[in-house]
């Protein structure tokens, strides 16, 4: 069976879900005739028509709000942010209207907001963001951020079938750089379950999205050069978060490094750290440490971007410090 890219996996999920359920439809800027800025929705218009693949005005509040209204009526809309950086334009309606709808008014709001996220692509401050932490603080939303093609497909299918609003972050660096054979059949990955990528016994790296791959590179180097056995846990779902998997890896290795691409202050690593000391304080042999982006807007020049973002060498250095603690 042929290998499929992360991007193609997302498209497959959209195709399959739209085939399966006539209530699923897509809307966003330039997604229909043009097929989306990254061509994720390429071919959807031909297959499903303009009624179910809608080019919208540049109005994130407008079409996210419209998705919510359609969702109340039983539709299952999938909104594309052309870049996830622009989800901030819909922040108010997502957090105030969508996230509260079920609780305050028993209004179902089954919808997905998806879009290309993340850096390492020379996109500069407004085409590289990782705004997931901004939504972690909003009860009523779910957040997933897959690292593999299989998870991208399986989690998007789960997100579309979920009865609440799911923010689906896609890492654009991974779009065409990774590929794998996908599981056969109706491949759905449950939201809220982490994935143990690699077992180890000396220390754990908890991460998600593109830095899963950097963590794996680092783990390989640490094994080779230091003889360290590193466990890598890919969270996949950030809200809800898999506390059980987090506790299990902490209790196993007793040393934890949390890695994410988002900036360090107020990033999700802080929340994970708090959970670890709630769940497994007595099991820790070292302080929980973070490797994340420096607290600056993400700059454009490669020398600057590469310095600001967490790199494999940073993970290696931090892991060595932890192992020696």
């Amino acid at each position, binding site marked *: 069976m042929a290998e499929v890219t992360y991007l193609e996996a997302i498209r497959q999920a959209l195709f399959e879900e739209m085939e399966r359920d006539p209530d699923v*439809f897509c809307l966003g800027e330039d997604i229909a005739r043009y097929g989306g800025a990254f061509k994720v929705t390429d071919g959807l218009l031909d297959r499903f028509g303009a*009624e*179910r693949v*809608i080019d*919208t*005005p540049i*109005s*994130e*509040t*407008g*079409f*996210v*709000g*419209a*998705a*919510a*209204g*359609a*969702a*109340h*009526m*039983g*539709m299952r*809309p999938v909104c594309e942010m052309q870049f996830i950086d622009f989800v901030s334009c819909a922040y*108010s*309606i997502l957090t*105030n*209207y969508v996230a*509260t*709808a*079920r*609780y*305050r*008014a*028993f*209004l*179902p709001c089954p919808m997905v907001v998806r879009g290309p996220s993340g850096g390492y692509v020379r996109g500069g401050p407004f085409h590289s963001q990782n705004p997931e932490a901004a939504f972690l603080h909003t*009860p*009523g939303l*779910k957040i997933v951020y897959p690292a593999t093609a299989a998870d991208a497909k399986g989690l998007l299918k789960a997100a579309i079938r*979920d*009865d*609440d609003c799911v923010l689906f972050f896609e890492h654009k660096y991974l779009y065409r750089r990774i590929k794998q054979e996908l599981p056969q059949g109706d491949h759905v990955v449950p939201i809220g379950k982490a994935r143990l990528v690699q077992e180890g016994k000396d220390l754990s790296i908890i991460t998600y999205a593109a830095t899963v791959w950097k963590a794996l590179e680092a783990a390989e180097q640490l094994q080779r050069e230091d003889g360290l056995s590193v466990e890598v846990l890919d969270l996949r779902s950030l809200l*809800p978060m898999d506390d059980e998997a987090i506790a299990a890896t902490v209790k196993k290795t007793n040393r934890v490094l949390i890695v994410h691409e988002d900036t360090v202050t107020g990033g999700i690593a802080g929340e994970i750290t708090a959970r670890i000391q709630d769940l497994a304080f007595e099991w820790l042999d070292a302080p929980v440490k973070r490797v994340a982006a420096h607290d600056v807007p993400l700059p454009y020049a490669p020398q600057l971007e590469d310095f600001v973002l967490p790199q494999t060498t940073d993970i290696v250095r931090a892991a060595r410090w932890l192992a020696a603690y």
Partner: protein
Amino acid sequence: MAATSATAPSPPAAGGLPHDQLLELYYWMRLTRSLEERLVNLYRQTKVVGGLFRSLGQEACAVGSAFALRREDVLSPLIRNLGSMLVKGATPVEVLRQYMARGDSPTRGRELNIHFGDVVDRNFVGQISHLGDMVPVMAGVTLSFRMRKQPRVGLVYVGDGATSTGAFHEGINFAAVQRCPLVVVVENNCYAYSTPTDQQCAAERLTDKAAGYGIPGVRADGNDVLEVYRVTREAVDRARRGEGVTLLELMTYRRKGHAEHDNQSYVPAGEIDRWARENDPLDRYLKTLTEDQGIGVDQLISIDDRVKAEIYRATDEAEASSFPEALDALEGVYADPPRMPVLWYREGVRRAVEKHERPSSWGTHDG
């Protein structure tokens, strides 16, 4: 499409409605006013635990416009549109329970005032406080009608103030482009909280905005219930025919403050009295019914009596309702998981909560 911005001409007498429907309009307006008056009493007795919002002087806007909808049509009310919700089937006891934060209120005590809805049967949507947000939401509700080829229409209210928001612009523009079967009613009541409309927008008329969206804009006398019904009905029919969005501007006046606590110090002297004296929608309609339609005052008095009795009954019923169980606060944020966990430091008081005991240290120390 050429946008037309004009005050509609005088309607044919009684808007073509038979007598029983004319009386129904009177009933809804009287019910709205009397129910709010009852709420004022309950507010002063501190039984309304939050703020109280009035639509005094604006009842014709809400009632006349909602009356142009069918049951299957979806309405999105704003804070001054109690009347529209009553027309759509909301009951006084629901409104009273909601204001008094009872456990069997339509939102089980989660939301305040008239922030509640029912999209299963009666078809009105629970609003949020962020003004303008309901316009994109209703664009989507009506987009679903178009996609499913249902002959249904949506109607969303905003105030003069909300027309300044980005959400209003994005929502109405999206709906216009998609030719959604939507009527956008701007209820221009001269004030957004304390801010007069000329500080809100430099356009002469808010219907001028319609041209920018390529849709018709119609301005009408919002204190003439039959006129409101007539212009809304035209817009609703147009939407149902698949001709898209209409912007209506209903000219009215907010005689009470933004909420009950507001002393209206910003209103020029005499302005409120003048509107009350010269342009009260109920007074005007009563005159139309008795003088133009030959309806006897006794018929109207019997409606007033019926309204009074209904409100007494509803108040008794609402006051007999119990308050919510504290642990219900954790239910239903998501479909799955169905409830959020109790935080660890509340575990000790959990049994007390379940037994409906309120620990003396509640809210300060856990002891």
